[in-house]
């Protein structure tokens, strides 16, 4: 019973029913990522620095920390198959960790995981009445995709299948796939997974890449209906191909 002096309560309101901006990172931590870069750190060490910067940049923004959600798929590294390292986590709860380089590059499987993750998360959002922006899948790789035993998959039926699934998902606007290659990568094969033009990251500029990613996610998470989102420039991290 509400007496005339009673005040409206907020107690039952879901904390943070804000719309979500989901982002999946598909990270190649195969053996080649242990190669040194001109900065004397290895590629994977630079990437780990970048991931930490990603966490800090997201948390420093009120809007990004409440709206952006991050999931991480690891390709290569400890397990022979691709692995879900971190399920979707609100940015303000996200804690960066270190990748360890090693093994092969089962990227096809990693992409499959990412696509499934995105669809599962959308179902979860819908059942909780949470609005969301179009999910991003950011793919970072420095090599050529292989199967679990290290055999190259370029040109195989298996690779063609997953690549076309990725492109179809993009065409159907289920997600945006943003491919990024590191020096030595087979960019032609990687480009097959997306209609977004592949970019080359300067291997000493992972930190700048992840700050750019955080700013981009924030811009998307702020965007209102009718906006065309202007992403920040990629020049702080993009290497010019020779």
């Amino acid at each position, binding site marked *: *019973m509400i007496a*005339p002096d009673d005040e409206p309560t907020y107690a039952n309101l879901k904390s943070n029913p*804000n719309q979500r901006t989901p982002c999946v990172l598909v990270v190649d931590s195969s053996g080649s990522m242990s190669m040194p870069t001109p900065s004397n750190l290895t590629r994977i060490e630079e990437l780990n620095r970048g991931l930490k910067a990603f966490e800090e940049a997201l948390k420093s923004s009120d809007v990004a920390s409440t709206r952006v959600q991050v999931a991480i798929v690891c390709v290569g590294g400890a397990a022979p198959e691709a692995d879900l390292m971190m399920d979707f986590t609100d940015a303000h709860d996200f804690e960066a960790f270190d990748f360890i380089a090693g093994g092969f590059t089962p990227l096809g499987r990693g992409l499959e995981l990412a696509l499934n993750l995105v669809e599962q998360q959308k179902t979860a959002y819908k059942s909780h009445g949470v609005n969301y922006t179009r999910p991003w899948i950011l793919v970072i790789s420095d090599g050529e995709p292989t199967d679990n035993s290290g055999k190259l998959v370029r040109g195989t039926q298996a690779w063609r299948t997953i690549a076309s699934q990725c492109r179809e998902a993009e065409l159907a*606007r289920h997600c945006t796939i943003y491919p990024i290659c590191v020096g030595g990568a087979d960019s032609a094969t990687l480009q097959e997974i997306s209609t977004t033009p592949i970019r080359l990251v300067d291997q000493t500029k992972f930190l700048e890449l992840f700050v750019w990613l955080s700013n981009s996610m924030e811009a998307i998470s702020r965007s*209102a209906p*009718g906006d065309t989102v202007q992403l920040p420039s990629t020049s702080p991290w993009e290497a010019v191909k020779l």
Partner: protein
Amino acid sequence: MAVENRWLIGKAAVQGVSHLAAGVPCQDYCEVETSPDGRWLVAAISDGAGSAAKAAEGAQIVAQSIVRGLIGEVARLERDGPGLWLKDRVYSILLDTRERLRRTGDDIRDYHCTLVGTFIGPTGGILFHVGDGAAIASRIKLVARAQAQVQELQLWNDVVFSEPENGEYANETFFITQDDWIKHLRGNILSPGVDIVALMTDGAMPFAIQQGQPNAPFMDPLIGQMLRAGDAAERDAILQKYLSLPKANEVTNDDKTLMIAIRRDMADFEQFKIIPSTTVMLMNSLADMAKPKDPNSFETTEEPQPLPKVTLLISLLALAIAIAALTLSGLALYQGRLHKPVPISMQPSNNDAAPRPPGDNPRIDGGTDAPSNSPK
């Protein structure tokens, strides 16, 4: 009589933390007008699209145009009740509004904005809607208890809810200013007996609606305070206050615009208390669109008040007699009448020779539902 049917209105537009931080002005516009005797209400909220060059202007022009257009139809709504003619009027006013935006010489897309609104009074009315934001309409039930000195109110009965239409993604919705706007124009005819109408933008939705239901813990005390307020300015201040508190900003960092109109003059009651309602909200307007729904949303349940046994027996006997009488006098009088939302296609009517299906013409009899003992 007229005094009791007067609409009491409160509205507030609170800029969201995310817009404050980015220096983006609030681009919502809320326009409200009532007839001189206060019994007829037209209100509209328009939300300008973030990046459209003249979004704020568009929202103002659209909200003002629809309200000014519809307030001229009060006499007709009173005489004829709501019907397809009303839906046609909304459509034609919006066509004129679009033409007016074009005549500025700008691209109409510079004015991108959504629209949610109502035209309502004693004979019923309409909720109209393009894009996001939401509207709810409800009937207040006065609960009579033998020994009570305090009038008890249940606020949420036969609730009609016009949902936001968003497309799949949060940053996509539909505008009155886009090419195929007609496909996204939705409307609900409202039967007589609506006592509460609330219009809101997305940001205010979590406060008013939770789990597909009116959010009583927030709305009931808010409406209680509004009913006790002295004047419109005080009602506005109440809404402004509860949408601006730090606790409110923890819930959302969006702009929050909310208008609540209540058709009751509670000064007639010495004391009143708002008690919980048990009705589940009736969803509508997106029924024919593929969208996941709250599984509870299609039932209406009202639990009877518990009665002592003797009274119950007498009531059952009276009921049996009444049923017999009703059957004889023709059940046709009671078809399709109790505040069922009549989702209507807002496509322009074709005025063709083919007979309309029965559901299209809501019964407009100006009466109240049988078991109510409330003065109207």
